[in-house]
């Protein structure tokens, strides 16, 4: 299989971006209307986000991205806004799992080496990030094989539709 390569621009955020900042509870009444909900993505963290983001851009955050609630709407609205991958120093457990389940790659790496607006190239197959603006190369921590398989199928629902069960490979 050829390597999967993504290219796009970095939109930089800080540390500890909670799910309340990604999509606040006050919009709970829009959760069954995802296109409307997505208009409020990251509103409390960066009010310019929705008008600025272009399809294929990357969200680049600091540590503990997505801490807080289990609302899967958080990765859903980020994806609907056009983001193609999330890069962070670390990510909260539930958010990480939710993002993968939504088919959204999350790469954990040293995001201090990325500035807002940098052009990035990501080799998803190898978990390698090249900052085309600065020339820096970043390596990302490994994703467990089951999660890579779920991501490879585009998310948990398509994965289960295809495999009917969780397939664990001993390694």
């Amino acid at each position, binding site marked *: 299989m050829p390597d999967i390569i993504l290219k796009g621009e970095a939109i930089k955020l800080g540390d*500890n971006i909670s799910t*309340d*900042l990604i999509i606040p*509870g*006050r919009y709970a009444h829009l959760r069954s209307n995802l296109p409307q909900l997505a208009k409020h993505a990251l509103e409390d963290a960066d009010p310019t986000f929705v008008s600025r983001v272009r399809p294929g851009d990357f969200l680049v955050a600091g540590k503990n991205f997505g801490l807080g*609630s289990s609302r*899967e709407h958080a990765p859903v609205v980020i994806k609907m806004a056009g983001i193609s991958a999330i890069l962070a120093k670390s990510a909260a457990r539930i958010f990480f799992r939710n993002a993968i389940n939504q088919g959204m790659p999350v790469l954990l790496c040293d995001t201090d080496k990325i500035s807002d607006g940098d052009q990035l190239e990501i080799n998803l197959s190898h978990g390698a990030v090249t900052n085309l603006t600065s020339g820096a190369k970043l390596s990302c921590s490994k994703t467990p094989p089951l999660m890579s398989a779920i991501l490879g199928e585009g998310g948990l629902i398509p994965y289960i539709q295809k495999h009917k069960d*969780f397939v664990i490979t001993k390694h």
Partner: protein
Amino acid sequence: MGKTLAEKILTARAKTDARAGDIVVANVDLAFVQDTTGPLTVRQFKESGFRKVAEPQNAVIFLDHAAPSPARQLSNDHMLLRRFAHETSCHIYEVGDGVCHQLVAERFARPGDIIVGSDSHTVTAGALGAFATGMGSSDVAVALALGKTWFRVPETFFINLKGVFSTGVYAKDLILYLIGQLGADGATYKALEFGGEALAHIAVPERLTIANMAVEAGAKVGLFPSDEATQEFLAAQNRSDSYRPLYPDADAHYERLISLNMAELEPMASFPHTVDNAFPVSLARGIKIQQVFIGTCTNGRLEDLAVATSILQGKKRSPDTRLLVAPASRQVLTQAMDNGYIKTLIEAGAVILPPGCAACLGLHQGVLGDGEICLSTANRNFRGRMGNPEAMIYLASPATAAASAIRGEITDPREIM
């Protein structure tokens, strides 16, 4: 080598030698959703082509977050969930029955169970020795359909508790202190396991407060062994047959050992806007507050209302400070009525909200105004949490909340007790 509580439970339920770092698939004993994450779960479930819930007797829907509903869209979400419960024969708890985690503790959780819920504070049931963890809507949809899910077996931090609380210090202060020490991501992907000689003095309601907030340090579970306190709690719920003893092995391997002398703790508060921004409450002394909220899955239990009532007895809230109280469940509310707590609280100027999440997540029943400051017994003070990114939230114990409501400013409860 011996096993931690997490390894023991996953070994038994996954029927394999589960060690930290392994990926295992295990049957779940309980899978649940609530009303703000449930509608997406239902849609994912249907989209996947599933029609049946694998074990409807082990599946529950809770209408607690937007209860009663403040908006037609949320009312329609409630209708969707009621319909789903009807179609699949799973349990449903209605508006006013209480917060999902309290009801899970009262009615479902058993030592050694595996519980998944589409709510991050599912960890609460770890107080009863259940491996209980929050997941998103897709994961719970699949758990409902297949009756199982996958887990990465977590490494464990052991928290060795010693001593007894001094006056005015409670389980909430302990967990706020611990989160302050660990940091909001200090235990990401890990299990927190509580043990030590002090456990004998920590009753299940206090354990529920502690386990509830394990996720605020990033942890996957917050586990207590099951012992006499567990037995006592289950007996009081008429669930003695749910009891199973459960202990870690003496030679279990822990990634970190943390010792905590409860006698050295003082009343704590998490300052805005992160839970790990925790300091002695005395450092916030005198900060004017416009709202106090006592309730939630963290501190809305009978014991919490008892403490608040004892402080508010014969006193009045400050005229400049609203006092909202939401019992965590219908059972808590009726017991609090029987004990006279509700009358005392109302006479002290409290507004009693229906059992449920109430003001906790900012979608109704106590949304803050611009620039307002709230002292809450909840588990999160993230910016925007109570419906307004221009407001500020301090987290503290019910005792601190009650004392602060009287003065209208953040107050160390020991000054009043």
